[in-house]
């Protein structure tokens, strides 16, 4: 891998990868942060899930299928999927005002589109489905973690899906392509590229990118992202299996 794409900015920054190839939190380039998944811990929601990825702490909840309100939004041939991604005021370094920012509105849209590809929307014409994501603590890669959790919440709600959606970010840091950016890498790195993927259907359902890559770097980054998504997909399957087939559901561990 290329060692350092030295723009004028990269020089000012502290090094994010040391001589041993270790990242600021000790990981190697292809390592994911510690992950914790839970399902079904919210009582009122039709489905819910919780994810911790590094310091990310995110709750997702699903309500529906239900009546469409207001009526003129009804889609005669499919389900109306709505999504709200929201950050708690205390989830970031500087308090974020509670009203949705433009960033949150855009992310709500791309998360919805990332999930819709998996949902069998034509099975529930004239109904609505609400997906709510609340970021309690944010640590880089929150939109990927949100999709991974929301996908579990959809499964928990019994919404028919073609595949699970798993999502993570890759990026370029000190000139290297690395998996699953942490907060510092997200802010000071050169590139952030979140990807959502349905492994069984081999379909990318979210793809965004910020920062400069050569075409070759892009290919390598995409490949690494898909590897990360497959890892998360396995973790999603495991927690669902444990939730439905083992006696101790992880949901009960909360709030101890």
């Amino acid at each position, binding site marked *: 891998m290329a060692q350092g794409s030295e723009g004028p900015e990269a020089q000012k920054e502290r090094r994010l990868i040391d001589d041993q190839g270790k990242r600021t939190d000790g990981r190697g380039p292809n390592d994911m942060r510690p992950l914790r998944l839970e399902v079904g811990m919210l009582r009122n929601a039709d489905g819910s899930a919780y994810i911790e990825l590094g310091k990310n702490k995110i709750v997702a909840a699903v*309500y529906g299928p239900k009546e469409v309100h207001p009526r003129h939004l009804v889609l005669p041939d499919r389900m109306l999927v709505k999504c709200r991604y929201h950050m*708690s005021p*205390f*989830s970031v370094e500087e308090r974020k005002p509670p009203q949705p920012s433009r960033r949150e509105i855009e992310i709500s849209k791309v998360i919805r589109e990332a999930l819709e590809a998996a949902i069998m929307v034509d099975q529930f014409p004239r109904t609505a489905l609400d997906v709510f994501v609340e970021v309690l603590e944010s640590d880089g890669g929150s939109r990927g973690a949100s999709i991974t959790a929301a996908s579990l919440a959809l499964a928990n709600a019994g919404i028919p899906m073609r595949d699970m959606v798993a999502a993570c970010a890759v990026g370029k840091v000190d000139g290297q392509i690395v998996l699953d950016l942490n907060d510092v890498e997200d802010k000071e790195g050169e590139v952030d590229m979140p990807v959502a993927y349905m492994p069984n259907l081999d379909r990318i359902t979210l793809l965004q990118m910020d920062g400069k890559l050569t075409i070759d770097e892009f290919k390598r980054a995409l490949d690494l992202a898909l590897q990360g998504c497959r890892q998360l997909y396995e973790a999603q399957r495991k927690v669902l299996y444990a939730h439905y087939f083992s006696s101790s559901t992880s949901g009960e561990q909360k*709030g101890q």
Partner: protein
Amino acid sequence: MSISRRNFVVERLRKEKLKELLAKGQRLDGRGLRDYRPLSISTSVVSKAEGSAQVYLGNTAVIAGVKTSLDRPYRDTPDRGNLIVNAELLPLASPYIELGPPNENAIELARVVDRGIRESGMVDMTKMVVKPGELVYSIFVDINVLNIDGNLLDAASYAAVAALASSRVPEYTLGDNGSPVQTGNRIPLPVTTIPVSITAAKIGEYVLYDPTEEEEAVMDTRLTMAFTEDGICALQKGGSGGWAPAEVIELVEGSFEKAKEIREQIRRGLGVGQAETAQGTGS
């Protein structure tokens, strides 16, 4: 308190059923009339917050986080820090929540929690001053309701109080040019007391503590009281029924004792070491 669309027939039948049980001193979930549901409090659950707490009161789930910043004091309190309490009924919390700016229920929730904290003198705001008249701490307490099953007022109050009591906020000194500099230390807030919110609901002639959402849906009226160790510091009647004066007096007297039990639970939730530190900071 957050139900916006109701099934009225079901509600009426349920009220009859509830009253039958109450006449026998029972409730749907097996509690006695004066029992609270299990209360669980965890602090420091969000590392980017300066203080945080997650509270489960039965199935009601609330998380509160504290952030501070330096700001100008309000004009009428130049020698005190600012306290800002905000509450959001997250749409995750119930099928009946509408998106948009906080509605009257969320605003009442924030303001009642605020009054309990403010009027108790829990945090000595005269110590939250960096440069008198010019620069003070603004303490933001943000309350997120994650799951609604009744008695949000108490659950939100416990979460806010525990988040404040477990906070560690940046310490500042004034630099040579008079502008504030972070020392790098994190210091606890000057906590002087732990205010405790107690809520009772009245259904027919029965008075019960810590109502569930089901009970709130059919209650006639509600009373929320906040207590310090010495007495009462805030009151909020809710609901469209009325209380007899004698009922109120009996309730306030009884709840003062109840508050002591809950205060112990909050202190345990803060952890012995933390609770001690928190108390110590007032001096």
